[in-house]
C-alpha cells in the first residue's frame, strides 16, 4: 500500500514537473534563433535576403507564418528553387513548419526572408530588428546582423543568440 502511494506521488511529481516545464516553454522560450543575417548588396541595395536557423525546443509543432520589419516596405517569406537551370523565387503562403526538437534553416538557395523596397539605409555590421510571427508563440522580435555580400569581411561574420 505504502509502495502504491509512493508510486502515485512519483508519477504526480513527474507530471507536475513536465507540465511546469511546458508552461515555461510556452513563454516563447521554445524557439532559439541562430545565424540571423540580413544580406545586402552595396549601399544602394533595393532588396535584402534574411537568413536564420530556428530551433524548436518545444514538444509541439511550431509554424513560422509571416515576417515584418521597419526597414523594408514589404517583408515576406520566400522560397528559392533551381529547376532545370532556371532560378525561381516564390512567396511562401502556407508557413514553414518547425517540428519538435528540430531546426529549420532559412538559408541560401532555399527558404529565406525577403525584404523588398528597403526604406532605410542598412550598413554592414549593424543590427536590425525583425519581427517573426509564429502560430503558437505569436510575434517574436529578434535581431539580425547586416552583412554586405560584396564585402567578404562582413559576410563571413555570423552571430548566434537567443531572443525572447
Amino acid at each position, binding site marked *: 500500500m505504502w509502495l502504491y502511494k509512493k508510486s502515485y506521488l512519483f508519477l504526480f511529481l513527474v507530471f507536475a514537473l513536465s507540465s511546469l516545464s511546458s508552461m515555461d516553454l510556452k513563454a516563447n522560450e521554445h524557439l532559439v534563433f541562430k545565424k540571423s543575417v540580413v*544580406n545586402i548588396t552595396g549601399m544602394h541595395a533595393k532588396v535584402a535576403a534574411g537568413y536564420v536557423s530556428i530551433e524548436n525546443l518545444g514538444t509541439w509543432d511550431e509554424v513560422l507564418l509571416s515576417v515584418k520589419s521597419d526597414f523594408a516596405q514589404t517583408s515576406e517569406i520566400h522560397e528559392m528553387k533551381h529547376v532545370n537551370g532556371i532560378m525561381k523565387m516564390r512567396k511562401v503562403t502556407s508557413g514553414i513548419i518547425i517540428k519538435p526538437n528540430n531546426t529549420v534553416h532559412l538559408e541560401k538557395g532555399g527558404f529565406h526572408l525577403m525584404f523588398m523596397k528597403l526604406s532605410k539605409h542598412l550598413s554592414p555590421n549593424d543590427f536590425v530588428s525583425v519581427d517573426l510571427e509564429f502560430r503558437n508563440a505569436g510575434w517574436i522580435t529578434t535581431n539580425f546582423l547586416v552583412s554586405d555580400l560584396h564585402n567578404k569581411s562582413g559576410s563571413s561574420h555570423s552571430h548566434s543568440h537567443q531572443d525572447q
Partner: protein
Amino acid sequence: MSSDLSKSRSLLILFASAIFFASVFVVLIVQPSTLINLSKKINLDPTLTLHDHNGNLVNSEYFRGKPLVLFFGFTHCPEICPTTLNDISIWLDEVGTITEKININFVTVDPERDTVEELNKYIDNFSSQIVGITGTQIELNKLFSAFGVYAQKVPLDDNSYTVDHSSSIYLVDINGRLFDIISFGEHSESAIEKLKSFLN
C-alpha cells in the same frame, strides 16, 4: 471497313504528331536552358543595340574578338545574382586574368528597373572587370534568343515582381562559339578549371 481503318490510322498519325510537337514545344520553349549545345555558334542579331552601365553603346561587334563571359540576372535579385557576380570576381582572381584578355558581362533580365543608372550603382559592388548591360526588352530578347536564355516576369503581392531566369554562366570563345557553361552551384574548383581551360 477500309474507311474505318484509314480513319483510325489518320487519328493515330494526328495523335503522334500532337505528342511530337508538344514535346518540341516543351523542350524548346518551356525549358530552353536545358538545351545547351556546347560549341554551337552564337548568332547575334547584327542590329543589336544595347548599352553598358556607363551608357556606352553595345552592339553585336562588342561581343566578338575577346573571350566572352556572360551572366544574366537583375539588380533586385537578392541572392543568386550578387553571389554569382562575387564568385566570378573571386574565380578571376584565382585565374589571374587581366581585363584586356576577357570580356565579362552581367546582362539584365529586368530592363524595366535596371536602367543604365541603376546598373551603374549595382556594378560598382563587384569586380571592375564586370560590365553591366541593359537596353530595351526587344533588344535584350535578341540576346536571350541567341543564348537560349529564359527570363520571365512573375508578379508579387505588392505590385512588384521578380524574374525567373537562367542561372548559368556562359563562356563564348573568340570565334563566337559556346565553349562551356558554369552551372549555378558548381564547385569553385570546377569553375576555375573551366575558366583556365577557356582562357588558355
